[in-house]
C-alpha cells in the first residue's frame, strides 16, 4: 500500500510545540509565516525578531536565526540587523500592545525610513500575555482587566495602525488580513508572500496586520472568538490593502 502525504508541517517552523492557548490564532499566523519562508526559500538566510508578548517565545518556533527584542523595540532592532545584513531577510513578529502602544515610535520611524524589513503585526485588541489588559486597539465597550466596565471614549478610540501608517511616504506595502476562516487564511498567506517579495525586491517597508483572537483574554470559547473577530473586530478594522507603492518604488537605495 503506498502512502500519500496529505499534510507535512512547514520547515519554516521548528519542532518545538507552540506555547499558545487552545484556539489562539497566533499559531495559525506562525504557520503561515513559516510556510512563506519555506516557499520563498528564505529559511536558511532569514533573521527574525521576536517581541515581548505572548509571542515572545517565537524565537523557539521560527526555524531561522532569531533575536529577542525589548518591548516595542523590534522595528529598531530589525533596523540595526538589516543595515549590517542588507542581503538577508529580516522580519519582526509583534503584538498590538508591543507595536501600537510602547513601540509606536519605532514602527513609525522604521516605516518613515522605509527600512527594508517586513513586520508581522498581530492585532488581538488586548494585552494577552500580561493577563488581558486594555490595548490601544481595544474596541469601545470591550471589557478588559483595566477597562472592567468596557472601554469608554475617554480611554481613546481604538487605533487603526495600517490606516495611520498608510499616510507615511516610506511605507511600501500595508495590508490588513484576518485568519478567522479558511478563505481568509488563504488571503492572509498571499499578503505575507507579497510583503516578503517587497523586501526581496528591496522596495522598502512592508507590514501585514492580522486580526487575531485571544480566547483567554476575551473570556470566550475559541469558536465565539472567531465569530467576535469576524463580526465585531473586522467592521472597525476593515480588511484590505491600504498601501501599495511597489510600482513606484525603485529598489531600496540604502546599501
Amino acid at each position, binding site marked *: 500500500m503506498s502512502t500519500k502525504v496529505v499534510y507535512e508541517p512547514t520547515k519554516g517552523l*521548528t519542532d518545538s510545540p507552540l506555547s499558545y492557548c487552545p484556539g489562539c490564532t497566533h499559531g495559525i499566523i506562525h504557520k503561515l509565516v513559516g510556510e512563506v519562508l519555506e516557499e520563498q526559500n528564505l*529559511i*536558511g*538566510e*532569514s*533573521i527574525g*525578531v*521576536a517581541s515581548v508578548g505572548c509571542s*515572545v517565545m517565537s*524565537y*523557539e518556533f521560527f*526555524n*531561522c*536565526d*532569531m*533575536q*529577542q*527584542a*525589548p518591548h516595542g*523595540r523590534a522595528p*529598531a*532592532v*530589525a*533596523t*540595526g*540587523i*538589516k*543595515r*549590517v*545584513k542588507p542581503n*538577508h*531577510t*529580516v522580519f519582526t513578529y509583534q503584538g498590538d500592545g508591543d507595536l501600537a502602544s510602547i513601540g509606536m*515610535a*519605532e514602527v*513609525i*520611524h522604521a516605516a*518613515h*525610513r522605509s527600512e527594508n524589513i517586513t513586520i508581522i503585526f498581530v492585532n488581538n485588541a488586548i494585552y494577552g500575555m500580561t493577563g488581558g489588559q486594555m490595548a490601544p486597539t481595544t474596541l469601545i465597550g470591550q471589557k478588559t482587566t483595566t477597562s472592567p466596565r468596557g472601554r469608554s471614549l475617554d480611554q481613546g478610540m481604538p487605533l487603526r495602525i495600517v490606516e495611520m501608517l498608510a499616510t507615511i511616504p516610506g511605507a511600501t506595502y500595508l495590508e490588513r488580513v484576518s485568519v478567522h476562516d479558511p478563505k481568509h487564511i488563504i488571503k492572509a498567506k498571499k499578503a505575507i508572500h507579497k510583503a516578503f517579495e517587497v523586501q526581496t525586491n528591496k522596495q522598502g517597508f512592508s507590514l501585514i496586520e492580522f486580526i487575531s483572537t485571544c480566547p483567554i483574554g476575551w473570556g470566550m470559547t475559541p469558536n465565539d472568538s472567531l465569530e467576535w473577530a469576524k463580526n465585531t473586530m473586522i467592521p472597525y478594522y476593515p480588511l484590505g490593502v491600504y498601501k501599495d507603492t511597489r510600482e513606484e518604488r525603485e529598489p531600496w537605495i540604502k546599501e
Partner: protein
Amino acid sequence: MAKVLMKGNEAMALAAIKGGCDAFFGYPITPQNELPEYLSYHMQEHGKIFVQAESEVAAINMVYGAAGAGARVLTSSSSPGIALKQEGISYMAGSELPAVIINVMRGGPGLGSIQPSQADYNQVTRGGGNGDYHLLAYAPESIQEAVDIIKDAFRVADKYRNPVMVAIDGLIGQMMEPVDLDKPIDLDLQSKPWAADGHGAKRGKNNKILSLFLDTKDLETHNLKLKVKYDQMVSEEQRYELVQTDDAELVIVAYGSMARIARSAIAMARQKGYRVGMLRPITLWPYPVQGFEALASNVTHLLTAEMSLGQMHQDVLIANEGQRQTHWFGRTGGVVPSADELFDVIENIILKGGVA
C-alpha cells in the same frame, strides 16, 4: 607619527572608524554632536553604516540588533540620552553582545546643563538598567587617551561579549588637542559563531540572541556565567595612573578633566614643598582598587576630587578600607573648578590635618 589638531568629539569619531566600527546609531544631544556629525560624513566613505535614529531608545536597540548580527557597533550620547539607553544596555549585557557606548557627560539631574560634568559616575559604574550586570567603563583625561581607548574598545567589547562605555566629560569632547591617530593597533577581528547573522543554512543550526530565561535556575546559571566575565575584568582590566605618589603624603584621587586640574594643583603644591600626588582611575568599572593597594605607607591622606557630589568618593572609601584619612572636594552642575581652588583645599588639609 604626525599629530593633528582635532576637536575631542571628532577625534573620537575617527578613532572609532580606526577601531573597526561597522555601524553607528545615535540621536543628537549636546555636547557630543560633533561626533555623529563627523561620522555622518565619513562612515559612508569607508562603506560603513550611519543612521540617525528617532530617539536614544531606538538607537541603542539598533545597536543591539546590529551587534546581534555580528557587527562592531557604536553609539554616542550625553547624560539624559544615556539614561534612555539603559534598557538596551541591560539587554546587551544579558544577551552577551559587544558594543561601544560613548558618553560625553553633562550636568544633571534632569535636563541639567550642557556644561562638563562627572555626575553620571553612578550611572556609568552601577548602571541604570535592570539586573545583575556591569559595563567595562573607561574615563580618559585627554583626547589622545580617549582616542587610544576607543580604538581598542571594540576589541575589548568583542573579547568579553559585553558593552564597553567610554565616559568623558564635555570638556574633553569640546576642546582641541594635537592627537596621533595612527598608532598601530591589533583589531583582532575574530569570527562570531554565535551571531544571528542569517547564516542558519550554512551553519546548520539557528542562532538565537536573547536574555529570557523563564526557569529561575537557568537564569541564575546564566548570571553566574556573566559573573565569571566580570570577575575576569576585575582582575585583568583595572587601569590607573600614579602621579608623583612615591614620596607623597597626600594623594588626590581624580579622573577625566578633574585629573587635569589636579595636575596643575599638584604642581602648585610641590612648589610650596607639599608632598602631593595623584591616583588617576582610567577604568571607573572595574574600579582600580589595585592602585590604592600600590600606594606606599607614606601616603596618609586621600583627597577625592570630582565634578559630582561624592559619587566616586563612595568607591574611594571602599577601596581605602579605612586605612588612610579621607577628604572630599567636588563641584557640580557643570561648574569646572580651578586649580587654585583645588590647591586651597590641599593646603587647608595640609596645614590643619597634620600632614608634615
